[in-house]
C-alpha cells in the first residue's frame, strides 16, 4: 500500500531523509557511549516530576557506586507505551527493563521468549532476592513456576472525593456503602450543580474499573475466574450481565463531566485536581497525580481529598473487602546486561522502596519498607490491601491484550448507552472464545 505514496515522494523525501539522518546520528551517539559505559535502558511511563526526580536520584546514586554503568530513563506515555511495546520488544532497540502490569499481557510476553526468565537469579543464594518481596507480589508475576518480572509496587483502585464539594452538596462519604447509596450521592451532587464524577472515556480503561468492580461485587471470585477461563456461562453469567445493567443505570444519570467520552486520563485527573468534579475512581497515588495534572500544578490540598472503597451491591456474591488493583513489576528483556538486573534489584530493595513510599509514590512490595508509607491516603490503601479477601489484577491486563481491550470498549459503550449490558457481555465473550 505504501507503493501508492510514490506520487508524493518529493514531498515526503525531505521528511524521510531528515529522519534517516536523525537515526544515523542516534546510532553513532549510541555506540560511542557504549564504549565508555554499559548502558542500561529503562523504559517507564511515569509523569509526576517528583517521582522522576526520585528515580533520577536513585539512578545517580547507583551510577556513582558502580562506575561504568549509565542508566538511561526512557519515557513513553501510557497509551503509546502499550501500543509500541510489542514492536519495541522485538527490535534491536528493546529496552532492558520496562514497566509491567503483570497478568495476561506479561504472560503473553513471557511466552514469546522476549523476556528474561528471572527464576534462577531470584532463587539463587537460598532465594535471597525472591524473599525480599511480599510473596503475593512475586506470585502474581509468576507463570508456571517461572518468575518473569521483579515486583515493584501494589495498588488498589478506590474512590477519591473532593471533601469541599461533598460538603457543598451535603453528601457524606461515610454513608456510601452500597451501589444504591452511591447512585443517590451522584444524584445529589448533580442536583447541586456539581459534576459528580471525572471520567476518562477517551482512554476507555478508566471506565472499565466500574464494570470490573461491579462484576466482582455481583459475581465474586468464582464467577470471574470461570469467565476468564472460558468455563460455564463465561461472561454471559447473569451476575456479569447484572453488573452491566447497573453500570448502564449509572450512565443514565449522566454522572460524568461534559465531553468525558473524549477525555484522556491525564485530563481526567486534572479535572478532579482543578475541583471541577467531585469524585474519581482511581489509583492509590491519586493525590500525587491529580496535583501533577491540575491546571495550577497544585491541585487539591491533601486534606481536601477523601477516600472510600467501591460500594457493595445488594445480594452480590462479592465482599466489600475484595479489591481491584494493580501489581506492577519490572520485566527484564532477554538481551539485558547483568547490570540491568542488578539495578532493578537495587531499585526495588527495601531502602529505595521505603524512600519511594515516603513521597507518596507507591505502596511498597519490598519486605521491611512498609513503614515508609506515611501519607494518610496511601496508608488507607495499604490497610485496605492488607485486609483484602481477594485482590484482582486490572481486568484489561489480566485478560490479555485483545480481550482486555474489548472489556474497555464494552464498558464505555455500556455506560454511554450505546450498547446494552447483554450486548457488551456478548462482545467480550465472543472475543474470549476467539482466543
Amino acid at each position, binding site marked *: 500500500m505504501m507503493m501508492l505514496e510514490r506520487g508524493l515522494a518529493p514531498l515526503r523525501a525531505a521528511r524521510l531523509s531528515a529522519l534517516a539522518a536523525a537515526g544515523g546520528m542516534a546510532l553513532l551517539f549510541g555506540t560511542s557511549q557504549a564504549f565508555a559505559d554499559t548502558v542500561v535502558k529503562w523504559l517507564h511511563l511515569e509523569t509526576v516530576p517528583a517521582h522522576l526526580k526520585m528515580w533520577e536520584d536513585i539512578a545517580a546514586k547507583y551510577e556513582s557506586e558502580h562506575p561504568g554503568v549509565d542508566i538511561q530513563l526512557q519515557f513513553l506515555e501510557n497509551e503509546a507505551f502499550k501500543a509500541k511495546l*510489542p514492536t519495541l520488544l522485538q527490535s534491536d532497540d528493546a529496552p532492558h527493563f520496562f514497566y509491567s502490569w503483570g497478568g495476561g499481557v506479561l504472560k503473553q510476553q513471557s511466552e*514469546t521468549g522476549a523476556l528474561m526468565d528471572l527464576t534462577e537469579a531470584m532463587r539463587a543464594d537460598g532465594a535471597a532476592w525472591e524473599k525480599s518481596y511480599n510473596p503475593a507480589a512475586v506470585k502474581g508475576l509468576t507463570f508456571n513456576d517461572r518468575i518473569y518480572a521483579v515486583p515493584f509496587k501494589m495498588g488498589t483502585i478506590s474512590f477519591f472525593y473532593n471533601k469541599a464539594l461533598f460538603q457543598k452538596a451535603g453528601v457524606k462519604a461515610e454513608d456510601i456503602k452500597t451501589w444504591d447509596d452511591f447512585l443517590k450521592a451522584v444524584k445529589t451532587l448533580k442536583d447541586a450543580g456539581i459534576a459528580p464524577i471525572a471520567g476518562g472515556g477517551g482512554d476507555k480503561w478508566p471506565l472499565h474499573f466500574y464494570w470490573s468492580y461491579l462484576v466482582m461485587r455481583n459475581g465474586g471470585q468464582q464467577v470471574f475466574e470461570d469467565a476468564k477461563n472460558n468455563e460455564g456461562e463465561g461472561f454471559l453469567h447473569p451476575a456479569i450481565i447484572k453488573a452491566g445493567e447497573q453500570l448502564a443505570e449509572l450512565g443514565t444519570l449522566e454522572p460524568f463531566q461534559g465531553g468525558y467520552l473524549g477525555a484522556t486520563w491525564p485530563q481526567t485527573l486534572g479535572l478532579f485536581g482543578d475541583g471541577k468534579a467531585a469524585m474519581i475512581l482511581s489509583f492509590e497515588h491519586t493525590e500525587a497525580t491529580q496535583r501533577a495534572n491540575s491546571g495550577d500544578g497544585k491541585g487539591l490540598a491533601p486534606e481536601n481529598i477523601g477516600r472510600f472503597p467501591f460500594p457493595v451491591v445488594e445480594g452480590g456474591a462479592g465482599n466489600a473487602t475484595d479489591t481491584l488493583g494493580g501489581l506492577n513489576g519490572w520485566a527484564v528483556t532477554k538481551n539485558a546486561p547483568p547490570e540491568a538486573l542488578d539495578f532493578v534489584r537495587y531499585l526495588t530493595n527495601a531502602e529505595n522502596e521505603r524512600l519511594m513510599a515516603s513521597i507518596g509514590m507507591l505502596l511498597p512490595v519490598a519486605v521491611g519498607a512498609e513503614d515508609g508509607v506515611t501519607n494518610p491516603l496511601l496508608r488507607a490503601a495499604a490497610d485496605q490491601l492488607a485486609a483484602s479477601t481477594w485482590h484482582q489484577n486490572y481486568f484489561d491486563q489480566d485478560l490479555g491484550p485483545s480481550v482486555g481491550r474489548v472489556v474497555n470498549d464494552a464498558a464505555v459503550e455500556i455506560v454511554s448507552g450505546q450498547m446494552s449490558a447483554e450486548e457488551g457481555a456478548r462482545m467480550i465473550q465472543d472475543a474470549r472464545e476467539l482466543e
Partner: protein
Amino acid sequence: MTDMTATMTAVPATASGKKVRYKSPTVRGRLPVLILFLPPALLLFTVFVILPMGEAAWYSLYRWNGYGTPQQFVGLRNFEVLFNNAAFSQALINNGIIILVSVLLQIPLALWLAMMLAHRIAGVVAFRLIFFLPYVLADVAAGLIWRFVYDGDYGLVAAVAGFFGVATPYVLADRGLAIYAVLAVIIWKYFGFHMMLFIAGLQAVDRSVLEAAEIDGATGWQKFRYVTLPLLGSTVRLSIFFAVIGSLQLFDLVMPLTGGGPSNSTQTMVTFLYTYGVTRMQVGLGSAVGVVLFVICVTLAFGYKRIFMRHD
C-alpha cells in the same frame, strides 16, 4: 523515457528497413546501463514494497500475536471477522465520506482560492503562504492543535461558546459531531496542497487563449468553464487522484484528535488497523485490513488512471 525515445528515433535514421538486425546493438549498448542502474532500484522495490506486501498477505491467513513466527493457520477467518465487524464497516463508510468531502468540497475550494491567487497582485505571495501553511505542519502536530481548539473546557470552542453564553459543545466527544470535526480539520490541512497544484497548473495556462475568449465576448464564468477548466484538466485529475489515495490512508491526523472514537465513530481503515491489529496484538487481523486496504487502493488507483488519466 526520454532516453528510450531518443534511441528509437535514432535507429530508423541510420538503418532503413531491417529493424531486427539493428535491435541487438542498441540493447547491447543499454545493457551496462541496465546492469548498473536496475538492481538497486529493483532490490529496494522488492525489499520494501513487494516483500512486505507478500508478508502481509501471508500473515492475514494466520492468527498471530506478532511474536515469533505465525503458526496457527486460520484460512480466511480474519477476513470473515473483519467484514462482520461493525467498527470496520464504520471505517469503510468514513473513508467513503472523507473521499467525497475531499473531492466535492476541498478541491473546489482549493480551485476557487487558486483562481484568485494565481494572478500577480499585491500580497498574493503572503496569502499563498498562509493557505499553504497547514499542509507544512506535521499531521500529528495539526491533530494536537485542533484537539486543543475543540476542547470543551479550555479550548477555543469553549471560549467562543462562553462568549455567546451557550452551553459548550464537546465536539470530539460527540458521536454525531466528531466525524464532521475531523472532516473540517482534513479540509483545513490539505486544501493548501491542492491549491498549490492548481496555481502551478493555472500559470501554465496560455494567456492568449484566454484573451481570445475575452475578445469573443466570453463572460468570466464562461472563460473559466470552457477555457481554464479544460486546460487545467490534467491537474484536476491528478489532484483528485491524490485526494482519493490520501483519504484512504488517513491516519496520523485522526489519532491525536479522536483516536477513532467515540464509539468508533471516526475510525478510518488505517486507524482501525492500528487499534484492532497493532494495539490488540492481532497481527493476522491487522494484516487482513492491510490486504483489503491494498486491494481497494490498487483497484482505485489503476482504475482511475485507466479511465480518467489515460491521456495525461
